[in-house]
């Protein structure tokens, strides 16, 4: 077999002519829409693609995006960031986490600040690196602060399995994994307390493809069936996104309401059963997980099963971990943005008090948040 080069995975999916061709198809089909439609891209990766490649500039006025809550860093409530901070400050602890988690400020500061104060905070690309760190530092406790949706959960599960199998004595876990379908249900069902109505504006969903690589497209089956919202599982390159949008619009024009997969090159209905079994083996659902900007969402978080409590940093360090919930600033409207009731520019502190360097609300903290994407790329429609 010829060697597959990395560029094969994205080159053709950024082709200007193909993108323009889809824009034309979408414009034609959108003329037939009976009313404007709002498509929620659930995932922060999609928000990033949509804004970075300027896709709203190619869409007709009656097709809008609602930027969803699918950025694992953005939705982490402050009290859990404080957990990471406090853990990193414990004697003989090395706190390990993924990517830009380390720059999100909690109430005492970010993990970067902790590091500047002498804490040993490290970021890794693969959680398996923890094994090496633990081996090199036998007199320290390595705490893996695990974050992410279904996409990253199996990597944590594999690490748990290795730690148990290899009897690694000095790795603990702080689990913050969350799941996508539960928060989608919450967005459709939730009552907005401010206006006392079920005022969400979501007509259809672009489903994140990498989540479905693990979980299959089956996790979205109920949305067209039970909630009347079409879902198209879509890839992350601009050609993917444009095709996914086009497929959604065609469903409306043809009066269909279905689950479809645009990202057929990887996603199937069942997903990666081995990864699912691993997740099932080590994790169980938390009855409630508090999402920053959205509040408590039933069954949306995971924790280590009771059997593995010995590896749970949240239990082992429970005496030092803060428990009080911390609300965001009163002026922050991230909850409304995540429900599709407001755009970032409508927020009075957007771009002034709240910037990527000094984020106040969840949508600004990571480059995948809606506000951060608007701030970074401008909204040049």
């Amino acid at each position, binding site marked *: 077999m010829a060697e597959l080069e990395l560029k094969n995975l994205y080159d053709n999916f950024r082709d200007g002519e193909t993108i323009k061709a889809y824009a034309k198809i979408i414009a034609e089909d959108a003329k037939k829409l009976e009313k404007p439609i709002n498509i929620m891209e659930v995932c922060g990766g999609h928000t990033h693609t949509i804004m970075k*490649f300027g896709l709203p500039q190619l869409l007709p006025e009656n097709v809008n995006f609602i930027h969803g809550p699918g950025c694992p860093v953005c939705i982490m409530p402050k009290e859990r960031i404080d957990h990471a901070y406090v853990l990193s400050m414990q004697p003989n602890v090395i706190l390990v986490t993924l990517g830009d988690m380390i720059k999100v400020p909690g109430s005492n500061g970010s993990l970067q600040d902790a590091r500047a104060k002498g804490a040993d905070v490290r970021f890794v690309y693969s959680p398996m690196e923890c094994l090496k760190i633990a081996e090199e530092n036998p007199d320290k406790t390595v705490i893996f602060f695990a974050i992410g949706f279904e996409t990253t959960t199996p990597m944590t599960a594999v690490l748990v399995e290795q730690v148990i199998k290899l009897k690694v004595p000095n790795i603990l876990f702080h689990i913050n994994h969350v799941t996508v379908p539960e928060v989608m249900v919450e967005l459709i069902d939730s009552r907005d307390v401010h206006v006392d109505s079920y005022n969400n504006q979501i007509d259809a969903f672009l489903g994140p493809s990498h989540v479905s690589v693990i979980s299959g497209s089956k996790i979205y089956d109920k949305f067209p069936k039970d909630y009347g919202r079409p879902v198209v599982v879509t890839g992350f390159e601009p050609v993917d996104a444009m095709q996914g949008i086009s497929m959604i619009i065609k469903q409306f024009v043809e009066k269909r309401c279905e689950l479809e997969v645009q990202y057929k090159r990887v996603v199937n209905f069942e997903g990666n059963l081995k990864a699912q079994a691993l997740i099932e083996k080590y994790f169980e659902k938390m009855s409630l997980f508090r999402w920053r900007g959205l509040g408590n969402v039933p069954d949306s978080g995971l924790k280590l099963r009771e059997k593995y409590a010995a590896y749970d940093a949240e239990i082992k360090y429970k005496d030092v971990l803060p428990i009080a919930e911390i609300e965001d600033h009163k002026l922050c409207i991230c909850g409304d943005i995540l429900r599709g009731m407001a755009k970032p520019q409508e927020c009075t502190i957007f771009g002034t008090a709240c910037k990527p360097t000094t984020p106040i609300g969840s949508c600004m903290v990571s480059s995948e948040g809606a506000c951060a994407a608007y701030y970074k790329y401008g909204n040049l429609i």
Partner: protein
Amino acid sequence: MTKTITIAHGNGGEENNELIKKIFYKHFENDILAKSEDAAVIEDGKLAFTTDSFTVSPLFFPGGDIGKLAVCGTCNDLAMMGAKPKYMTCSVIIEEGFSTRELDKIVKSMKVELEINGAIVVSGDTKVVPKGAVDKLFINTTGIGTIEHAGITASGLKEGMSILVSRDVGCHGATIFAAREGIELESGLQTDCASLYPEIKALMDAGIKIIALRDATRGGVSAVLNEWAKTSDVCVEVEEESIPVLDEVRGICEMLGFEAVDLANEGTFVLCVGKEDEVKALEVLQKTHSTSAVIATVTMQYVGRVLLNSSWGTKRFLDLPTGELLPRIC
């Protein structure tokens, strides 16, 4: 300003600028410093003067080492003012226990690079500190050069001018990132670390009038273009497709969620010339690197901003990189 200094304050982006302005410029304020060029122009425009410290880890990397970097970095800052590097100082801070042979290797590669620039080290200092006080070896170099092309300035951009890059961008940043602990990536990439004076001399010898010139080190090409747009009160309009990026660099960027234009370079410069010099300048640059290209035009569309045009007709701003570069999560 935040209460404590974080890694982000040294990234060449927004936080770095804030630190320099609010602390150093505040106390050191003077007209020469205020110009904030790569090197200070002193003695009535005859000399360029600059300094730089080097703390790179790992000390040896594909395509270079800290010694080569320490000479290139300072000489390039001089070259970016149209100056020929002449005299340098070299200070080293060494952690106790450091290998003598490695030190010798590093100083040897400094010598090779000095010869390329035609410069000599005329003064120096050595300090040895207890284990843990520095990470193996830090080097500071200061350089003086004689100015051969006057009037190069970040504030000289005018509508209609052309902007070029001297080669494909992001190699150094991508190489260092791939070699970092915690990121297990294998690649055949090499840093672009190189002395730039010979290329600048070739441009001058060809009679090209250089308007602005800057090596795209920390903060990458984005930082240079943003600074020029702000200082000159113009809009820099970039054709995204024309930015040369190696497949390997793009691959690393895609995996980690970076943009090549945000990554550091150590031997890549950005050049602004009048439209009439564009073709000739490109010809000269391509003799050294076939990947050099015209990437942008100066316009007045969004003054003070850098605009990126895609091949499918959309626009977005290219912002100054902020914060520490961190790989994306999924």
